[in-house]
């Protein structure tokens, strides 16, 4: 079953603009991760935010987490054409035995036009 649901499903912007993607989830989490997928390729991990964190930065990426609303957002500032990709949030469903099972949303397709 899907835990994270991204919004919007698709986003089209111009280079230099900021892109904001949202993720909502249903049950309590240990952490939330964002991944990026270029067309026809595998997923690449972008950033992880723990349940006791509210905000995290990595380069042009800013992630926020609101556990009271069960939601997270990913902001990409000063977007570039190379940021064109699908972006997925994933939540960790519990933890046992030393492994993390992730539940992915359906993703947001971001298109950045030159």
């Amino acid at each position, binding site marked *: *079953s*899907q835990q*994270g649901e991204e919004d919007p499903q698709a986003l089209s912007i111009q280079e230099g603009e900021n892109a904001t993607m949202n993720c909502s989830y249903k049950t309590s989490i*240990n*952490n939330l*991760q964002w*991944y990026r997928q270029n067309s*026809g*390729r*595998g*997923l*690449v*991990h972008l950033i*992880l935010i*723990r349940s006791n964190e509210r905000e995290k930065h990595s380069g042009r990426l800013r992630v926020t987490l609101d556990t009271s609303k069960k939601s997270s957002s990913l902001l990409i500032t000063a977007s570039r054409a190379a940021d064109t990709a699908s972006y*997925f949030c*994933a939540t*960790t469903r*519990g*933890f046992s*035995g*030393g*492994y*993390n*099972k*992730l*539940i*992915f*949303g*359906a*993703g947001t397709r971001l298109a950045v036009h030159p």
Partner: protein
Amino acid sequence: DVKVTQSSRYLVKRTGEKVFLECVQDMDHENMFWYRQDPGLGLRLIYFSYDVKMKEKGDIPEGYSVSREKKERFSLILESASTNQTSMYLCASSPRTGGGNQPQHFGDGTRLSIL
């Protein structure tokens, strides 16, 4: 740099065939995963393994089996391929250390078509 390698980028098989998808990681990770990715559904976990010869069912294991004879290799097996198994298959790995706070590293995927 970390690397997860899937044996084929594209694969075409016929209904009823036994299909093997191979995945190798060079990071000495304990955990390995198989997902399938379909439009609008995101990634769904088929099976995962947290050690050699160990496996656990994910959310959609029906019609699939797995094998992990060596730490670096995790194979997905479609026992009798059906057209509804046409999909993109992604393999991933992660270390056991750090508990549930480790990212997963993905291969580039195998796009499988069952005719």
